[in-house]
Structure formats: C-alpha cells, structure tokens
C-alpha cells in the first residue's frame, strides 16, 4: 500500500530487503519510538570525547616540546616521547610514513593527522552502519535531523576528532527525551564549546582578565567571544529575526563566560581559572566569568556563576519562539520544503504543551495527515540517498573509507557542513545537474558490487510498495543486466525523493 511506502521512505531511511513492517504504517512508526537504541552495537568501541580531548591536548604539548627542542638539521630523529597508554583512546595503529632525517615534530604531526583520519572514518562508518542496520530507521533519521540542527563542523581542527563523539554523546541519548536535556548536553559538550569559541571566551571584568590586565608586560588575547551565544539564539533555540538584539547577544555571551572545557588551558592559567580536571569534561571556570547581573530578552538575570547562563538556557529551551522554530524545521523535514502552516501550528502547540517532549512531537508528526501527502515531498540529501541505497542493496559491512569518501564526492561530507547552520533541508540545495550526475556515477559502482545477485524488478516492487512508476519499472525491466537494473533503480525519480 502507498502509505507503507511513505512510512518506509519518508519517515524511515528506505526499505531493506526482508524488512517486514507488517500491520499499520503508523503503528510501525510509533513502535520505533520505543525500539530506538541510543547506543547500538555499531557504536561500541567508539572513543569517548574525554579520551579524544586528552589525546589532542597531549599531542599539542608534545608538539610544542619537540618544536622547542628542534634538533639541528640532518640529525637522525630521536624516538617519539612515550605517552602513557591510558591516555590514548583505542584506535587503529598506523605507523607514520617516516623519511630519513625527518623532523620529529613533523613526524608527530603526520602521525596525529593519520590517527585523526582513522578516527573520523571509523566514526562515520559507525554512524552509517547504525543507520543501515537499525530496526528503528525513523529514530535514526531523527538522530541525523538533530545532529544537523546542532551542527558542529569537523573542518575546524579541534573539532575534527570530536564530531562523532558529539553526536554519540550529546544527541543520541536525548533523541527520545526532552529538547531541554539535549540543549544542555549540546552546549556543554567540548565539541560545541570548542567549535564556536566558547571555551576561550573571557569576561572583560573577570578575575582572570583583571589579573592579566595588571601585568602590562604579559600580552595575551583575553576577552569576550560572542560566537556561541549568538548561534544558540539564532540557530539552536529562538531562530533568526525573532526579536533579540545585538545587546541580547553580547549580554548572553557575558553570562556564558566561564563555560569551558577542562584540559585545554596551559599550566598556570588553567590552575588559576580552575579549568583543570579530566580533559574534555565540561567545567565552569569562575575566574573567567563576567561578574554581575545581565539583562537578556528584557529580563534580569541575577544568579551568579554557572547558574546564570543555565537559567537563560532553561528559559530559551521552552520559549514560544523556540517551539515555532523547531516546529517549522521538523515540518519542513517531513511534509515538504514549504511546510503547511497548520502542521507547524500543531507541532508548536504540542511543544508548548509538553514543555518540549520530543516523542510527543514525533507522535504528532505521525498522526498528521500533512506528513502523509501522496507522492514524494522531499528531494533526498546525499546522506539520505546513500543510506537508502545501501539499505536497498542489503549492505552488511563497509570498508573504513567507503562512506566518508562517497559523501565527500556527493558534496555532503559527514559532520563537515562548514557552518553552524548545518546542511540546508530544501531541494534547491541538492537537486543540481552535477549533483544528480554524481549520484549516477556513484551508483554504477554500488550496483556492480551486487554482482548480479539482486533481481531489480522484484527488489523495486519490495522497496516501493504500490508506488513504483511505469517509467521506472520499464527502465529497470529493459536493463541489460541485473546490476544495471539495480543502478537504474537507485537513481530512479522515486528513489531520489521521499
């Protein structure tokens, strides 16, 4: 039936052969809310952000030491300084490419770069496997939705290794919880604090700034950075043009000073600020905090210390503008690029009523007729298309660089949107001539790996119950081989959309 096609493709991540979503499509989706697993087997073995930050901090220290003690040129390289094994996250050991006489600092840099690539590839592969294998693809789609809403971008060096851990630690555990809890987990996660410069934002009248200011011979860049405060208001909660002002941004940035990451400060500064502790943990550094009452969104925020910004976040988490912003984005994701106002209003009202209970929002989506409009309403992003293609051909295992490479070529490198706004969720962002051509190029390789083992006519009927168009069915039936038929199926108009 056509509605099952919508449940599988628009709400889910595309059908898998042998999937048996019997019964009512809405029941099938509702059951997934309970079936969703925050930490699926594909993710076991992924290093925690604390280990990754420790590793990065140790790398930076080692590099600084090596650079200080630069040996004279042409001297043989000394061995790398040993690191305590406990500080290292599990990873694939890759011996660096060493040239005779190579500078040890350069060698360390290369080694770290290779480890970073391995970690990134491993995390992306884990994400893809979870999506391909999941019995709750609707839940996995929501993970991808929220990770994009709270986007960090791994093209900033401090964030490269942390982007995967960010999704696994701050997004996944809260997808079936409350928006408030996800918001707090996100804004306290080292990846976000580092990505949007919050970790180094210092109140101009904080004890640290005052102390440094008293030593005119010490030149340090210390001061306020409003990057995260602005994006919380603009992207994470209220949404742009919802009435907050530049003064609100600056005041909120002042309130947030002190929210930082342990393990990044160097010796005396870290001791003074109190930003010590297990590297990667959230820490509130009172010495960096701007003292005093703040005025934000017309309200006085009098609480001292960490509680000040926390109180603002609490307020933002359930603000009516936040409800409207999130309702609009969810509606766009499930009902089309120009979402119906009635659906937005319904989601908004539900968010306000529950105070941001996410499963209630999902149940509202499932129950809303606007999300079940016949035909297709969305052009798939490269990620959605790739995952659905791999599900369609029954992919079980992945080469370590297969998914990262594919998404890079299709123009949507995973966790690297380049901007805190994340990837666009409208057809205009993805339905370009070259973008479609690249999918056609990629699909020939994916199809060749099926080695003519799939009957594309039967598979297409299974993937698109009652919705396969005659033109697609004919193109597949006339293919010169099973592989070519699979390729045509995966770039068919109904497969590019959902």
């Amino acid at each position, binding site marked *: 039936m056509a509605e099952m096609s919508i449940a599988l493709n628009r709400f889910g991540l595309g059908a898998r052969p042998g999937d048996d979503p019997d019964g009512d499509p809405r029941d099938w989706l509702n059951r997934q809310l309970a079936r969703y697993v925050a930490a699926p087997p594909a993710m076991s073995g992924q290093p925690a952000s604390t280990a990754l930050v420790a590793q990065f901090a140790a790398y930076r220290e080692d590099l600084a030491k090596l650079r200080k003690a630069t040996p004279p040129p042409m001297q043989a390289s000394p061995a790398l300084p040993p690191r305590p094994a406990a500080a290292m996250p599990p990873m694939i050991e890759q011996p660096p490419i060493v040239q005779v006489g190579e500078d040890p600092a350069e060698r360390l840099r290369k080694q770290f770069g290779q480890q970073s690539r391995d970690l990134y590839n491993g995390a992306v592969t884990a994400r893809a496997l979870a999506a391909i294998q999941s019995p709750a693809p609707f839940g996995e789609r929501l993970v991808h939705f929220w990770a994009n809403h709270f986007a960090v971008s791994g093209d900033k060096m401090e964030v490269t290794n942390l982007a995967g851990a960010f999704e696994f630690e701050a997004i996944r555990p809260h997808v079936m919880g409350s928006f408030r809890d996800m918001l707090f987990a996100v804004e306290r996660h080292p990846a976000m604090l580092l990505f949007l410069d919050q970790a180094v934002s210092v109140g101009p009248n904080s004890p640290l700034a005052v102390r440094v200011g008293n030593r005119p011979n010490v*030149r340090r860049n210390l001061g306020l950075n*409003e990057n995260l405060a602005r994006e919380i208001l603009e992207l994470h909660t209220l949404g*742009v043009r919802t009435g907050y002002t530049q003064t609100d941004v600056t005041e909120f940035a002042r309130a947030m000073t002190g929210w930082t990451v342990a393990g990044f400060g160097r010796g005396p500064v870290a001791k003074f600020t109190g930003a010590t502790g297990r590297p990667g943990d959230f820490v509130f550094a009172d010495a960096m905090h701007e003292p005093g009452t703040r005025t934000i969104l017309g309200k006085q925020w009098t609480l001292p210390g960490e509680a000040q910004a926390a109180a603002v976040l609490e307020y933002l988490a359930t603000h009516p503008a936040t409800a409207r912003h999130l309702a609009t984005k969810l509606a766009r994701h499930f009902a089309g690029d120009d979402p119906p106002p009635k659906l937005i209003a319904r989601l908004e009202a539900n968010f306000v009523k529950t105070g941001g209970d996410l499963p209630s929002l999902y149940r509202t989506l499932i129950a809303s007729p606007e999300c079940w409009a016949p035909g297709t309403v969305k052009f798939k992003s490269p990620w959605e298309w790739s995952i659905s293609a791999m599900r369609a051909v029954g992919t079980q295992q992945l080469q370590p660089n297969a998914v990262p490479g594919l998404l890079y070529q299709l123009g949507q490198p995973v966790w690297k949107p380049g901007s805190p706004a994340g990837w666009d969720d409208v057809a205009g962002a993805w339905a370009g001539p*070259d973008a479609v*051509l*690249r999918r056609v190029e990629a*699909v020939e390789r994916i199809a060749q790996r099926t080695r003519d083992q799939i009957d594309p006519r039967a598979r297409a009927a299974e993937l698109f119950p009652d919705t396969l168009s005659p*033109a697609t069915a004919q193109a597949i039936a006339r293919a*010169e081989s099973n592989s070519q038929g699979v390729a045509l199926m995966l770039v068919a108009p109904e497969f590019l959309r959902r």
Partner: protein
Amino acid sequence: MMLHRRQLLAAGATALLVSPLGARMAFAAAPTERRFVFLIQRGAADGLGIVAPVGDPAYAGARGDLAADFATAPKLDGMFALHPAMPNLAGLYQAKQALFVHAVASPYRDRSHFDGQNVLETGGVSAYQLKDGWMNRLLRLLPSGDKAIALAATVPMALRGAVEVASYAPSSLPDASDDLLARVTAMYEGDRQLHPLWQEAMATRMLTGDLGSDGGKKAADTGTLAAKLLSAPGGARIAMIETGGWDTHSGQRGRLGGQLKGLDAMVAALKAGLGPHWDNTLVVVATEFGRTVKANGTGGTDHGTGSVAMLLGGAVQGGRVQADWPGLSDAALYEGRDLKPTTALDVLIASAVSSHFALAPARTAKALFPAMTTAAAMEGLVRV
C-alpha cells in the same frame, strides 16, 4: 587538444576542498566580449584588515595586534594601506586596475551570516524577500540566448532564478558508462524536475570535455579554471566564485593573511589565464557584512557592518580608494561597534555592472536591486 573532463573536475575538487578559500564557482554564458566575475567572500570579511585606514587616528588603538601587519604594507594613499599578503593586487592598483570602495554595506543591518548572504545574493532589502538572485536577473537583461552554469554541485543563490543555470563541480568519481547515461536520460524524460536538470548535466559534460585540463591544488587553480571557462569561444561570460573561511572570530592575523594570499593568487591566475580578455573583465569582490572595529578577546573580530568591496580588472578605472570615510572614533561607529556604512553596495554593483555591459543604469538597478532607494548611479567605475 582534447582534454578529459575528469582533469577539469579534479582541479575544481581540490579548489573546493583543500584551498584555504574553499572556492566554488558558477558560470554564465552571454554573447558579449565583456567578462564579469562576482567573487563572494562568505563569512563576513574584515574590510578594515584588508584595506586598512592606517591614517585614521583611532585605527591603531582600536585594532591592537591586528594592526601589526600594516607596518610594512604598501600605502594606497594618505589614508589607506593594502594588506601585504596581496602583492598582485598591489600591482593591479599600481596599474590602475584595482578600485577599493570602503565603508560599503548591503541594505542588511543585522549580523546573521545566513541572512546577510541571502540579502547580498538576492539583491533584496531583507532576507528571503526575493526568491531569485541578482545575477540571474542580470542574465535576463543581456542579449538572449544566454546560458548559465554553476561550477558548484548546486547553484548559488545569486545565480538562482528563471534563467536556466547548469551546475558543474569537481568530482573524482569514475565516469558513468554512456549506456547507463542514455538509459537515465530516457528514465527522466517525463520528470519535470529531473529532465531539465539532466539535460543541463549532459550538455555541460559535452562542453567541458573540450576545455579544461589543469590539475590544480590551490586557489590559483580555481582562478585558472575560471579563466579557461571564461575564455572559451562561445563559453561562459559571467562567473561566480564562492570563497569561505572569512569568519575570523579568533586568531585573525594568521587566518586572514592566509585567506588574502589565496585570494591574491586566485586573481593573479584569473588575469594570467584570461590573457587579452582581462582588458574586458570586471571582477567584483564583496562580502555579506564587515567585522567589529575593535579586536575581540580572542585575537579576532566579531560580526560587524561596513566592509570593503573591490573592483578588479582591465575594465576598471582603478588606482584609487573610494570612500566617504566615516571615521573610527567611538562616536563615529555604527551602533558603537562597527564601521558605519556610507556607500551602498547595491548601488556600487548596479553602477559597475550597468556601465560594464552598457545597460541603462536605472533599468539595471531596478532589475538587480528592485528596492534600491538611492537614485544616483556611481560614475567612473568602469572604462566604457
């Protein structure tokens, strides 16, 4: 020489993903000898760190460390100096082929990148008010038969609109077999969205097979590639190059220096590649808004308002900095923190483009920036 499409694509791929400018390009063809390139700096480029008002008494104090690069910078006039990472642009200035217009801004006055870029690209007065881009509307003013192509996986907003714009972008995927392509063509025949997209993709595939070959790794290769497509007989005459990485909230000195070095190399390669066509070329470089006058606490600057725009090319009446300079004293700043805009970027673009293509100024302004309030066009920007 027949050159393989993939070599062209590979050149772009590197430019897109490895170049510090993160450049992507879009092209449009028009039956004219005049070439026009719009180079967008996404992320809010710091105009005060690019063309620095070193003669302003408040400059050194406000900028602190960020002013240090200008100790050795080439002076443009009694007030301004050019960032030393751009020797080629300094040379263009000497040759009167570079015009810097300072304290410019689009009509957008808030500080969101995404809204600001939307205004800059659509030519509206507020974000999402217009649904198409001013470059697309420019194509409609040029002689008919014009075709546009985006050298990016998707078409940037400035080029989106009623005139068909194809896209073309870097890829190192293997070519799909001709048989599969033919079958896909047939399968998309009845699809209203995919059929025209696919026609464009196939047309571009045919065209670019004859053009490019540069295996490029840096921003310069993006410039060379753009020049190649702009030089081809019957090829593109209008291009858009997207660059990112200008959002320098921290560590600005090193980052901006690297960005400007890449920009300088890209422009130099574009000039070299265009050869004699450079004389007929106008390049407009602009950003969505500027950055704060005072350095922030992390060696960078935050989102601001006024910035600098550049007009480059053999067609430009350059060799000067044009600015109704508002000053950097605290009282002179916009909202107490930003360079106050005194020149409208939309007037600048409309004036430069209309004289470059010999279009009626008023009609061009109305088409490109429908809500533009300033009536007077700026004179003497381009040699006609």
